[in-house]
């Protein structure tokens, strides 16, 4: 019985990690290529979820909603990149943090102004709801399995794009030497906008996929944003591979920690204080993980040294 539970929790951790990767990929790409700390990324996640909810309410189609989430977040991303963000690439991290902090305020309240103060409705489509019987009697949500699948596909697509396509070559070159690729005739400003829009689109997709099983509301982006930062710091900022490993690590640590720590404490104290203390420790677990990784490797697992 408990082995089944453990397998199910591992799947949950994996699903959480894959979604975190969609968020973290954009953050780490934008940092790698443009050197920008982008706190607005959480707002783009929120924009994706709201766009999906709005389209799903009009059309009733979940697939159209997903398309809308990518398009909506990428569009908003493009607009803010061209209007504001591109002025920040040459600034220091401090200015970047503050300016994108200001953008969060604007995007959050703007969304509330457009959509109201109550959460919106977005649900999983009927053809993905229900559960699937996996081998060994494990019953698991089809939607969550699909999220793992969709996330892995997006990750594979991203790796392929970076390794094999022309844009990917430019991105990798941009990470190494920005002046040089400009000298080689690549339109850097267009490349920047494109990278930012790709990151935004991925965040929007994550927002819609997660929004369907959570609450689509203003402020949904910030907790995820902080988690995504933890992920890229653990993985090494700028490294897509690091973001993937970091995301899975964080997903598993968080999910398994929440499950296992209260049980662990219950071995040597009474049930209700074990629940309380175990849960407290679990909520700190990923930050402990991050501090531990940074102490051993100050530039993350896959960071350039």
């Amino acid at each position: 019985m408990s082995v089944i539970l453990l397998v199910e929790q591992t799947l949950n951790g994996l699903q959480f990690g894959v979604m975190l990767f969609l968020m973290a990929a954009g953050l780490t790409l934008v940092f790698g290529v443009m050197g920008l700390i982008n706190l607005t990324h959480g707002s783009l996640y929120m924009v994706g979820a709201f766009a999906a909810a709005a389209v799903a309410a009009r059309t009733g189609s979940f697939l159209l909603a997903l398309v809308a989430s990518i398009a909506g977040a990428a569009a908003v991303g493009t607009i803010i990149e061209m209007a504001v963000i591109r002025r920040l690439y040459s600034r220091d991290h401090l200015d970047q943090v503050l300016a994108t902090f200001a953008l969060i305020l604007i995007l959050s309240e703007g969304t509330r102004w457009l959509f109201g103060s109550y959460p919106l409705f977005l649900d999983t489509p009927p053809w993905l709801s229900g559960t699937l019987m996996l081998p060994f009697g494990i019953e698991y949500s089809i939607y969550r399995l699909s999220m793992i699948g969709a996330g892995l596909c997006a990750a594979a697509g991203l790796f392929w794009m970076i390794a094999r396509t022309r844009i990917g070559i430019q991105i990798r070159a941009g990470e190494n030497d920005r002046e040089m690729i400009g000298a080689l005739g690549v339109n850097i400003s267009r490349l920047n906008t494109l990278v930012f829009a790709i990151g935004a689109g991925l965040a929007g997709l994550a927002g819609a996929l997660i929004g369907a099983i959570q609450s689509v509301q203003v402020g949904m982006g910030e907790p995820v944003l902080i988690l995504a930062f933890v992920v890229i710091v653990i993985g090494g900022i700028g490294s897509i591979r690091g973001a993937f490993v970091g995301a899975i690590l964080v997903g598993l640590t968080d999910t398994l920690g929440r499950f296992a720590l209260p049980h662990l404490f219950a071995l040597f104290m009474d049930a209700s204080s074990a629940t309380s203390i175990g849960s407290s420790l679990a909520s700190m677990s990923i930050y402990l993980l991050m501090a531990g990784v940074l102490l051993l490797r100050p530039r993350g697992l896959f960071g350039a040294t």
Partner: protein
Amino acid sequence: MTMKLKMKTLAVAASLAMAASGALAGGAKVGMITTLSGGGAGLGIDVRDGFMLAIEQSGRSDIEVVIEDDQRKPDVAVQLADKMIQSDKVDVLTGIIWSNLAMAVVPSVTAQGKFYLSPNAGPSALAGKGCSPNYFNVAWQNDNLHEGAGAYATSAGYKKAFILAPNYPAGQDALTGFKRFFKGELAGELYTKLGQTDYAAEIAQIRASGADVVFFFLPGGMGISFLKQYADSGVGLPVVGPAFSFDQGILQAVGAAALGVKNTSQWSKDLDNEANKAFVESFKAKYGRLPSLYASQGFDTALLLISALNKADVADHDGFRKALEAADFASTRGAFKFGPNHHPIQNIYVREVIKEGDVFTNKIIGTALENHADVYAAECKM
């Protein structure tokens, strides 16, 4: 809603009722501190709208209401309370939604000799040892709805409950309240992280626990997330909870996942009494949406205030307090009176989530606890 925040002088135009009611004992200045921006704004807006509706219907132009936004931040709420007492010179304060903000504001307000009428939060400290003659709770003590849920789960014949709530004081009170009235055994007890949005790990444990019922207290977006994921997981055990996660405002966001869930509440829009029918109709007519639990509480708070103002002058503290204690008004929830600690003694109903046309809403199916008071009253000495 483009209502200006600083409605410094929201003096309500009226004259008809003034002449009719006769025994007027002077007006009052009321300070409302509530959450109007950010994530929890929906609740504050409902309390405000319900409150202002009652003031408007009373036709009294001598009740002035100052409304300010606390942004759900305790320090801002404390500061606004200082401002209202020091600068606006209000007589009565009200409006706070969250227990932690109430704990920050209420003790200092009552210590300064002002009255506070709570339209929502009812932390146990203010009902027991920290009770005050000038503090009145018009909603519920925090434990009440959870106790109702425990009583209902027992009467419905459930034997093994799995219970969960966020790991913070109101969450711990919720589980304690449920356990106080649930006679079966527990299949599991879990605390989740405050603000948590993914409940896969918890749902897996529910599935493995062998429970026959699930009780949860997860306010706001947390409840929406939990219900959607729970419905999707196919666990399918019956769910019981307090009304907060099944309120009119958020029910539409939960959707079909909530259908059939039993929840406990001191109010429902189909509660059969004249005051409630009139309230539901007029709220719909004025604001174009169905009233929520919070709107009804805001409405009742204003009714209580008006009833007391009709009997006594607010400057006469002892007389005004007596008038409040009498609770001589037609509450939207039917019978209503105060216990010795100024907290409600009222029925807790069981509601079921149904679909009316396109709209998800609640229907009363029974009474969980009759004339229910809270357990902290004994600790209150005033």
